[in-house]
């Protein structure tokens, strides 16, 4: 390049020359002498730039500005949800000491991050009612895949039962993880009135090969699964493990899985202080009971509390690394290396700020707003919300008649509102149904605007 780049301090000609002199070369190309000539790339990479800082801000912001502005957060959920991120969370995770550090393989100089992740693991356990949490998985979907594989390793069985009401994306990722390990995924039916898992169908699907039974609470379609103790019993009677996937925001109001027999708890930690970011980075939650056999089979990193060798002082370190790929290679419990540590740190700050009272209040506020929205939407002519009779937390189905979900959503977008996710392709049996989500960010005014806009759209 013509002038030294700010990111490349040794591109200044005198420095570069001195360094080349020191090691005895006349040209940088000598360093690439092992690359066979026919493999040397002689062209110029077709990538625009170099842009100055101001130019790149203009360019990239310009592209982002093409995303539509909405009057209020989208009424979308399903695995990523619009929740408020307190400013303290972003302040902390932007600290350069955290942001620009590597995995804490050198514990003496990275006690800060180690303690943060230990606290994250601990806070997660308190929320879901377990004793051991790992340092994070990529997202809920990959956590589900790893959970299926873990139940199979622990039980030496290879069928994994999941509900029929599950996010098709999550199911697809589960299959990507399960199939190569020879694990068969079977979907259990649901009650057409309540949406709840059909416990009789579950029993029929249980056999000697069942490694795990998985449910989601709240379910993908937003209702609370009530027969949890029966499901746990059915699973445990067959010596299968009971795995529960959660939206952590619900756990201020809803009983945690640790209190109804879950062996493994997974879920999506995004709403714990992480922005939606078009679906990534997310935070795969993963927690289990304090059972040495289970801990040994955990995927991912674990941070442990220990002591200094030279004095009685508490310290933190990555532990049980013999489960991991960098030590165990082909015998590792998982291939995961980089995880979502900074998202976990955000989760730790978030849960610390919220405290028990904050989580309870938030959970209640969210569920109350959703209930209000359900009642108002259900009063619209030709609209039913929700289609199942069970209690819904923050997501709920809305079924339209005489108009398609696509038409409704187009009408809403014209009014700078984003409606619920269409379930038409995912669950064709449910007809023209969409999955709506309401959180603490949707004020009464926002919900009222949605309802009046829906009314306009329905009237045509």
């Amino acid at each position, binding site marked *: 390049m013509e002038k030294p780049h700010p*990111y490349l*301090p*040794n*591109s200044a000609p005198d420095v570069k020359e001195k360094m080349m002199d020191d090691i005895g070369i006349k040209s*940088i190309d*000598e360093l*690439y002498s092992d*690359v066979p000539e026919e493999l040397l790339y002689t062209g*110029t*990479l077709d*990538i625009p730039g170099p*842009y100055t800082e101001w130019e790149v801000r203009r360019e*990239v912001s310009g592209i*982002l500005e093409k995303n*539509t502005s909405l009057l209020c957060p*989208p009424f979308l959920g399903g*695995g*990523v949800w619009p929740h408020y991120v307190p400013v303290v969370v972003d302040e902390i995770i932007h600290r*350069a000491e*955290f942001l620009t550090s590597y*995995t*804490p393989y*050198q*514990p003496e100089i990275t006690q*800060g*991050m180690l303690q943060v992740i230990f606290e994250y693991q601990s806070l997660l*356990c*308190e929320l879901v009612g377990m*004793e*051991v949490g790992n340092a994070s998985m*990529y997202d809920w979907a*990959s956590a589900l895949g790893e959970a299926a594989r873990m139940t199979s390793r622990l039980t030496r069985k290879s069928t994994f039962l999941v509900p029929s009401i599950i996010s098709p*994306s999550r199911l697809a990722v589960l299959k*990507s993880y399960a199939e190569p390990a*020879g694990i068969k995924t079977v979907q259990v039916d649901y009650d057409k009135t309540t949406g709840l898992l059909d416990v009789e169908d579950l029993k029929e699907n249980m056999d000697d090969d069942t490694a795990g039974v998985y449910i989601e609470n709240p379910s993908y379609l937003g209702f*609370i699964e009530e027969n949890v103790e029966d499901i746990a019993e059915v699973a445990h009677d067959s010596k299968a493990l009971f795995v529960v996937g959660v939206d952590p925001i619900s756990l201020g109001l809803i009983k945690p899985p640790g209190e109804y027999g879950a062996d493994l708890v997974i879920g*999506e930690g995004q709403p714990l202080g992480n922005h*939606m*970011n078009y*679906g*990534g980075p997310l935070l795969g939650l993963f927690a289990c009971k*304090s059972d040495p056999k289970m801990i040994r089979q955990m995927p991912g990193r674990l941070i442990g509390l*220990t002591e*200094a060798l030279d004095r009685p002082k508490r*310290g933190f370190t990555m532990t049980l690394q013999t489960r991991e790929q*960098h030590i165990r290679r082909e015998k590792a419990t*998982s*291939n995961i*290396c*980089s995880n979502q*540590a900074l998202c976990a740190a955000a989760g730790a700050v978030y*849960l*610390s700020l*919220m405290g*028990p009272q*904050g989580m309870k209040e938030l959970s*209640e*506020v969210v*569920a109350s707003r959703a209930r209000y929205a359900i009642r108002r939407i259900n009063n619209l002519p030709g609209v039913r919300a929700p289609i199942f009779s069970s*209690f819904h937390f923050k997501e709920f189905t809305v079924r339209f008649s005489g108009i398609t979900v696509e038409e409704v959503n187009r009408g809403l977008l014209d009014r700078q509102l984003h409606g619920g996710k269409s379930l038409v392709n995912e669950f064709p049996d449910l007809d023209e149904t969409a999955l709506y989500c309401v959180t603490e960010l949707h004020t009464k005014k926002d919900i009222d605007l949605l309802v009046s806009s829906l009314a306009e759209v329905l009237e045509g």
Partner: protein
Amino acid sequence: MTLRKYRQADWEEPLIFELGREDRVGFDVPSLEPELIDAVADITEFVPSGMLRTKPAGLPEVSEIEVLRHFIHLSQMNYGVSSGIIYPLGSCTMKYNPVVNEVLAGHPKMTEVHPEQDESSVQGMLEFLYKLKSGFLEVTGMDDGTLQPAAGAHGEYTGILLIRAYHEDHGELDSRTEIIIPDSAHGTNPASAIMAGYKTVEVPSNEDGGVDLGALKSVVGPQTAGLMLTNPNTLGIFDENIAEIAAIIHEVGGLMYYDGANLNAVMGKCRPGDMGFDVVHVNLHKTFSTPHGGGGPGSGPVGVKALLADYLPVPDIVESDGIYSLSYDKPKTIGKVHGYHGNTNVMLKAYTYMLSLGGEGLKEASELAVLNSNYVAYKLKELRGLSLPFGEGKWRMHEAVLSAAEMEADTGVRALNVSKKLLDYGIHAPTTYFPLIVPEALMVEPTETEPIEALDEFIEAVKEISELAYSDPEEVMNAPKNTTIGKLDEAKAAHPKTICLSWRTYCTMAP
């Protein structure tokens, strides 16, 4: 040069659970409007019996300032690229993480967008993702790709699933059962191959650190599904036999997988696609300057040659007349590996970086990364007790692996001790004991973003440690002393009787 007297902070910071008091809050939850309360009454009344949480979560009760101070204290007990001096951690490419990347990644039209939004409302998002993908395909010389994998190992798993799908499509799923991996490979390679249901076959390195061709020929056959390789390899040496290696694998019907961990050496200089690789993953958190965040999130996009394009995950981002959309039209797809589109926020940082450097700048970044690493290797190998094994007389690429075996034999000071002593100078340790084929390995990767002054400070510190090893080995072996804490009781951390992975467990343990 005088080395600085470093002292890391130690706030003796309590656990967050040990702070605060009853009824204190750190955040005020937005309340309900009175009219809304009137309309819905008490929500707890509607929760099905038995499903109501009766005992609040055992979270701490801390005010905002206490939370802020707690975590800032902890941050000061951590070491980052931007807050340290130099982070020469081999294989991890700890380059500068530009601030402008973070600023743009915080744009509300990035952060507040839901992944299920209608395509028409996320045109900006799809545009930058599409352009980022084109950019990384250009750098790697591949035909198509996916952005879904959330990390390098996730990319490896995806890549191996693509190879598996290819063989399955060609009726060879059951016959091709082996993935070949050199003994110098990252641990993720064999772990990913095994996860995808393969057996792994290890091939030894030759004296130049490259793949031993004779050994490779002896293990390939109709059972070979593919080979996983990084080039330059983990020793930082470019394997000049790469074309022949690719030919050996392709001849038996196997496919070539490129682990992009070391791509920072060769941007604009040579491309995996031209070397004969069929599938490649790139670590955006290494080569494309996105921060490691204390262990993640990363991003591990995968590029493929045309023969694997049909199997890529869905959805794909396509463009027509300037309109971007998501396409699910891939009947042979492996499905999905991530719930959504991958770590999109990380990708925005990588895209910003790409544009900041441009095609020419990326090439210069690689050249300077290689110059920096050779400069450091050249000076370090002259120090007493250190050597640069394998590839005698060969230049290194982006990293170099030194051996402290002689120092260990002479003084008892091991690579680990050298690493720990470096921390006392405020310098992050190199990677130790990897690759496994180098005894007492110290794997050094300075990256192109370190000024010569930082390189010299690192070299000087290693020099002082080498001298100290021969004069006062105990002093080196007792390091570190200037960090927040000294050596830790790793045995206690892992022992079944004393292992403590949460506050809940800690509370049950005797003091």
